[in-house]
């Protein structure tokens, strides 16, 4: 069965510092991996995806994620956090033979000025 784990309920970081939001997955075969962000009272916004190729994927708002097959991880990163990055972040996985997205439990990112 497919699953996604986001081990941290909340991540706190000071503005200007690098941030990492962790995600590990379990899926048979090669997965499609996604990161979404949800601002208060808003829907989900797509940030980036890994399909194939380069393990480092760049996305919106300066975010990037690194696919690590051996560790089955897809951590979200940003070199320098902004207060406006404070939001709820969801990792999601989809197997190659299904349309179904499986979401992690979400990680709340709080960036302090």
């Amino acid at each position, binding site marked *: 069965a497919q699953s996604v784990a986001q081990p941290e309920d909340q991540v706190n970081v000071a503005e200007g510092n690098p941030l990492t939001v962790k995600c590990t997955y379990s899926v048979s075969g090669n997965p*499609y991996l*996604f990161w*979404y962000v949800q601002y208060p*009272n*808003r*829907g*989900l*916004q*797509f940030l980036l*995806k890994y*399909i194939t190729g380069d393990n480092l994927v760049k996305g919106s708002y300066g975010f990037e994620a690194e696919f690590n097959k051996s560790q089955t991880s897809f951590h979200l990163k940003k070199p320098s956090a902004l207060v406006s990055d404070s939001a709820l972040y*969801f990792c999601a996985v989809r197997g*190659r033979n299904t*349309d*179904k*997205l499986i*979401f*992690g*439990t*979400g990680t709340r990112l709080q960036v302090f000025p």
Partner: protein
Amino acid sequence: SAVISQKPSRDICQRGTSLTIQCQVDSQVTMMFWYRQQPGQSLTLIATANQGSEATYESGFVIDKFPISRPNLTFSTLTVSNMSPEDSSIYLCSVDILRLADQGEQFFGPGTRLTVL
């Protein structure tokens, strides 16, 4: 990408009543999805709606409780029937616009925040 709208954006309903949520997309899409996000929790897929066929429901969700319509390639509705306070959630629709490429991310509507008293 796609522009997705949902109506209503929020509603407060009495238990035992039903609410129909509409989802409109600005382009034709093959697959539309309905999710539920309970307070403080992640997203759970309710069902997948393809135009011209019956919706496919996930485990724990049934058609009598969550009937879905998909009359065309740009529109779908989800009805939450015989509501109870446990149905208080955000309901989101999403679309997969790159189905043919088989690698499309899903784009989400803004959600409908439902409170059942």
